[in-house]
């Protein structure tokens, strides 16, 4: 025992060395990398800020490239970003339009990749990521007007996004419930678009968002998507399913949804609009002036959103808050999305009754074997843009 104690003194010295060694073996590689790379990034950021300053003073003198040039340059560098997972079709259509291969980088759900220039042409929703890039509130990147955007609607590759859907079987068995739900939801959307500030507050109360300011920004942007169609015309009948825009979406979907399963791919190529939407429920709902559709077959329903609770879905939260669902005899439970069980799966297996998804995702799901039915198209134009830093794409 005494020997061991004597040894300990020696050991204590050795311990320190070993500690450093172990840590080096653990963290050494990564910290080395950090050191090397920090130098690089330091350089780039310093040039960035310089470029930013000059851009501020001389934007009028130096011209930004055309959209085509921007897309070509970014694609050739392999720095076009999208989240994938069914959100990429519009970007692929745009890349094809300019003769580029349809590969893209997987973009995280933050804009760090755009910020550090690993993605120079990044996907953004006008109401969400674009706001985070431009604005200066908590969690945002404060680029204000030093960024430009490429709008999918202007490029003619727009696909319709947020809708309301359920299974065909559910709609057939519960027509009153479906009409009542559409009626109350549209009432909520109408109120939300007329009072975006109030809607933002309501959503902020229900959700757990970064900031009230971001919700307000989002509400004002979402209002534009709900009230304007892909050609820029004003829409008065909220939630209507515009034939031309839906056909365009279906056509693009058929081109860019790549399915490995031959059976599903065959089914996709044969899909028609009648396989994915039914306008009768929305028409029935809007025809009503008092919201009386007879007793709902199912009074307690749930709707799963496509994403986290935010002003993107303000119509439903407003309808909930203002009691519009109660008025039509429905008890509605809003389930937020963004989880691994996607809204199409949840609706298809009956976990929830209604869902909000992008039309393209619904088309893909039906090709895969689901029988889902769009009953209303809430967003009338695409909210997807590609955002870039102006000074990266100067002539």
């Amino acid at each position, binding site marked *: 025992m005494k020997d061991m104690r004597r040894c300990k003194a020696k050991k204590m010295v050795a311990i320190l060395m070993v500690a450093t060694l172990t840590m080096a073996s653990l963290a050494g590689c990564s910290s080395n990398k950090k050191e090397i790379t920090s130098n690089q990034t330091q350089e780039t950021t310093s040039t960035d800020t310089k470029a930013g300053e000059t851009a501020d003073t001389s934007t009028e003198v130096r011209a930004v490239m055309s959209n085509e040039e921007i897309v070509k340059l970014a694609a050739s560098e392999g720095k076009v970003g999208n989240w994938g997972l069914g959100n990429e079709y519009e970007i692929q259509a745009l890349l094809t339009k300019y003769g580029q291969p349809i590969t893209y*980088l997987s973009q995280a759900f933050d804009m760090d990749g755009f910020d550090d220039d*690993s993605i120079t042409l990044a996907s953004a929703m006008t109401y969400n990521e674009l706001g985070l890039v431009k604005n200066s509130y908590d969690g945002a990147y404060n680029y204000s007007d030093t960024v430009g955007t490429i709008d999918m609607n202007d490029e003619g590759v727009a696909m319709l996004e947020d809708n309301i859907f359920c299974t065909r079987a559910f709609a057939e068995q519960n027509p009153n419930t479906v009409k009542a739900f559409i009626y109350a939801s549209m009432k909520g959307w109408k109120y939300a678009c007329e009072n975006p500030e109030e809607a933002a507050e309501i959503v902020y109360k229900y959700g757990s968002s970064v900031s009230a300011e971001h919700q307000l920004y989002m509400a004002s942007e979402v209002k534009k998507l709900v009230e304007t169609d892909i050609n820029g015309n004003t829409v008065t009948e909220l939630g209507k399913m515009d034939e031309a825009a839906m056909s365009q979406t279906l056509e693009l979907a058929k081109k860019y949804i790549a399915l490995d*399963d*031959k059976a599903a791919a065959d089914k996709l190529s044969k899909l028609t609009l009648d396989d994915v939407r039914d306008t009768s429920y929305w028409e029935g709902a809007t025809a009503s002036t008092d919201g009386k559709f007879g007793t709902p077959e199912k009074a307690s329903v749930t709707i799963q959103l496509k994403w986290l609770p935010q002003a993107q879905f303000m119509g439903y939260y407003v309808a909930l808050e203002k009691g519009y669902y109660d008025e039509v005899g429905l008890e509605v439970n809003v389930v937020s999305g963004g989880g*691994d069980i996607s809204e199409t799966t949840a609706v298809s297996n009956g976990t929830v009754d209604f869902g909000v998804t992008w039309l393209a*995702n619904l088309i*893909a799901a039906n090709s895969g074997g689901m029988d889902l039915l769009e009953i209303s198209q809430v967003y009338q134009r695409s909210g997807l843009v590609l955002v870039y830093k102006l000074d990266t794409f100067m002539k």
Partner: protein
Amino acid sequence: MIKRKKNIFIRFFRNPKVQPFLSVILPVALGVLVFALWQTQILHKILGTDTFTLPLPSQINRIIGDNLPKIMLNVKATVLVAVIGLAIGSFIGYLIAVLATVFPRWGAGGLSIVAAFNAIPIVALAPVMTNWTKDVSSDASVRSMVAKVLVVMIVSIATMSVNAYRGLNNLPEFSLDLMKSYAAKKRVVFFKLRLPNSVPYIFTALRVGVPSSVISAIVSEYFAEYITGVGRQIRENIVIAQYATAWTYIAVACLIGISMYCILMMFEGILLRNRK
């Protein structure tokens, strides 16, 4: 004395000649049975699911046949990440266990810290690693690879270090006393007693480590910048509701796991036989 003990241990572990024969036939028989139930949709009735959520084996088989080159490309990416991560992670893990044995007081504390890495969810680890490795290379495929390997590595370190530490310290009864009575030096105790004693524990760790390295590789692919790998395909297809294709990749993921496990078992057989 020590050598004889080891022999008994090994002899116990791998019994007579029939055993290897049985250990092939039995699982295969069960597998065939499950496949039969699955293909005839009896399994679907038992589980209360449908052929859409759980596609038939024949359908999966057809999709594999149709997309073999693409699948192999994804398999390569995933296997590379899993194997490299597991190898580096296990090596570091064992090294930590050795250090913890040589310096028991300080090492044990460090070991608990390392084991704590196991408690960090991969879903949190993967995006962090992606962020940290942003500047490793301007090539997205390279830096994604590094990020994924790091995730697998960290997960493997924890498993290996805990098990190896046990193997290095959980010595046969009285063997340490015996070594002391020989006045054996620490170094001798280490190489003649601790090191050989830890070998079966290494394999225990790897048995856990192989499946978890594949899973970690798959989960880290969800968050990687560069789009490739079996995991990414699973996620893409589940999200766009292509269950047949998703299950194809799930089946492929299982195959990767099984093959890696079989290779591990082969190694174990060879290594432990040499010890006789």
